[in-house]
């Protein structure tokens, strides 16, 4: 199988410019800057069916085309490297092992949208990935791939590597903008969308690390080649991150549409200690949990949506038969209660309320009324908040309660289930 985003992983010193160049590095950027017009590049991306791999799955070329032409304000590209969705750990590898693929993608993207400044927002805990990426930026400036008159053209571009400071919510694109502007990470109402009113009130494209790393190979080998790698409307491969009760946790680059069963049992080495599968989160903690009868699903945005879950960030967390699902719900609820930014009341108050309610049930003090109340509380968060964090609580925690209701009931009756 042909690898795209991880094609250089495992090669010696893959992070160095000299090695990146040996493998046609910056050839796509040269092609774009010297022989393609920006609308042509955007068209190519649209045809490739590349979709946002941070979690939302929005078509990348379409996102770029929303940048208004003829707007006199500066335009920005912001790379979301605030990888924080539990179960997700892929962008870290790209920043450390193939930073120039991201940089070349940034260069092509900025040229396509008419931007001369890109900010790369890396989560504050990623100290090593930050240093690795900064070193690549420094190399690229020295080699003339950033700065003024790039590759002998008129085009100029500056890249700033920016550290976050430990807030999950900053992975939400408008919260990331608030944070990057020097404020608390509070999400903003949409519309206006960032493409029109984004960073410093200027038109802004926000893309994930993995998404932009796929841009150079698309320009080199063509949109059709990329589209064919994946499934219908879900072009290319994606990096799946597998963790939890499997024998080989790690990252696996596979075509979009690979069945979840194959990822767990073939690629990730099957269940730890040969135990039975009980539940699996298919796309980061925010994605509704799946039961073993659902794992023949194809792992792409549309197929997961069709069964009521989501592909999200590609973070697959596997739980075996020994897992107490009330406890698992408690862990998820604690995460949401901890990371709610506090801006909207339904989420700020609701996340804590849900956590306390589940804690009470888990600790054996729950009543049947608690379990009757829980769906009502959970369902009144989503849809009533500025950003999708509230929806994530509803979808995620709600799915544990709906699919493993018998375990909640057993806790209330003080029966042992696992």
């Amino acid at each position, binding site marked *: 199988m042909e690898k795209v985003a991880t094609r250089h992983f495992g090669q010696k010193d893959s992070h160095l410019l000299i090695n990146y160049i040996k493998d046609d590095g910056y050839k796509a950027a040269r092609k774009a800057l010297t022989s393609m017009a920006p609308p042509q590049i955007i068209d190519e991306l649209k045809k490739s069916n590349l979709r946002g791999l941070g979690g939302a799955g929005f078509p990348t070329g379409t996102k770029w085309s929303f940048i208004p032409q003829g707007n006199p304000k500066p335009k920005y590209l912001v790379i979301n490297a605030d990888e924080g969705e539990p179960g997700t750990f892929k962008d870290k590898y790209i920043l450390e092992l193939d930073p120039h693929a991201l940089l070349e993608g940034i260069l092509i993207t900025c040229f396509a949208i008419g931007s001369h400044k890109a900010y790369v927002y890396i989560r504050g805990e990623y100290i090593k990935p930050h240093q690795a990426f900064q070193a690549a930026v420094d190399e690229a400036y020295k080699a003339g791939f950033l700065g003024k008159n790039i590759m002998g053209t008129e085009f100029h571009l500056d890249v*700033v590597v920016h550290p976050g400071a430990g807030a999950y919510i900053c992975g939400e694109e408008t919260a990331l903008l608030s*944070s990057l502007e*020097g404020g608390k990470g509070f999400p903003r109402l949409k519309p206006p969308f960032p493409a029109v009113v984004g960073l410093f009130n200027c038109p802004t494209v926000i893309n994930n690390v993995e998404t932009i790393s796929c841009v150079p190979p698309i320009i080199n080998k063509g949109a059709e080649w990329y589209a064919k790698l994946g499934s219908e409307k879900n072009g290319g491969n994606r990096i799946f991150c597998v963790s939890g009760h499997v024998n080989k946790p790690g990252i696996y680059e596979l075509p979009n549409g690979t069945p979840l069963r194959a990822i767990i049992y073939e690629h990730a080495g099957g269940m730890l200690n040969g135990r039975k599968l009980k539940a699996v989160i298919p796309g980061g903690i925010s994605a509704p949990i799946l039961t073993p009868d659902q794992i023949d699903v194809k792992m792409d945005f549309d197929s997961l949506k069709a069964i009521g879950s989501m592909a999200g960030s590609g973070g697959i967390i596997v739980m075996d038969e020994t897992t107490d699902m009330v406890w698992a719900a408690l862990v998820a609820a604690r995460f949401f209660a901890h990371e709610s930014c506090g801006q909207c009341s339904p989420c700020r108050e609701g996340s804590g309320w849900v956590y306390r309610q589940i804690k009470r049930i888990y600790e054996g003090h729950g009543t049947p009324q608690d379990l009757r109340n829980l769906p009502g509380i959970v369902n009144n968060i989503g849809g009533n908040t500025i950003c999708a964090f509230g929806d994530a609580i509803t979808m995620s925690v709600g799915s544990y309660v709906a699919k493993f209701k018998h375990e909640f009931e057993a806790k209330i009756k003080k029966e042992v289930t696992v």
Partner: protein
Amino acid sequence: MFTADFIQELDKITVKYDQKKAALLPVLHHVQEKDGLITPEAEKDVAKYLELPVSHVHQVVCFYHLFRQKKQGKVHFAVCETTACALRGAEDIIGYIRQRLNIKPGETTPDGKFSLEVVECLGACETAPMMQCNKEYKGFLDKKKIDELIEKNK
């Protein structure tokens, strides 16, 4: 008060940004790197330097988990307790560190050598259970690894 040399270091950061205010997070990181925490005094200095209200700087310091208002131990254990780590035994690891150091999450040992914090996902679930120990990620934690880290830094 920031020294002239320190202000020069900060200038190197702020010059990259289109607006001075946008440099607030990296500036605070730089201050914390120097002092080990962000004091009310430093908040005032940062506010003056970036021409912001002190209240804004304070809000930002309080909002972000990585900015500290009290000093940590020389060796700081930030142990992940989110789903992937929890499934692979994070609670036992946290319990063992508590027992070994006789401190609760959020506390520092009386000699100032160790502190413990329980955090949410650090993006290294493939190495669960894991933690951040000062600047480094440590994965596949077990009692032996915790013992080694404690003995080495005692």
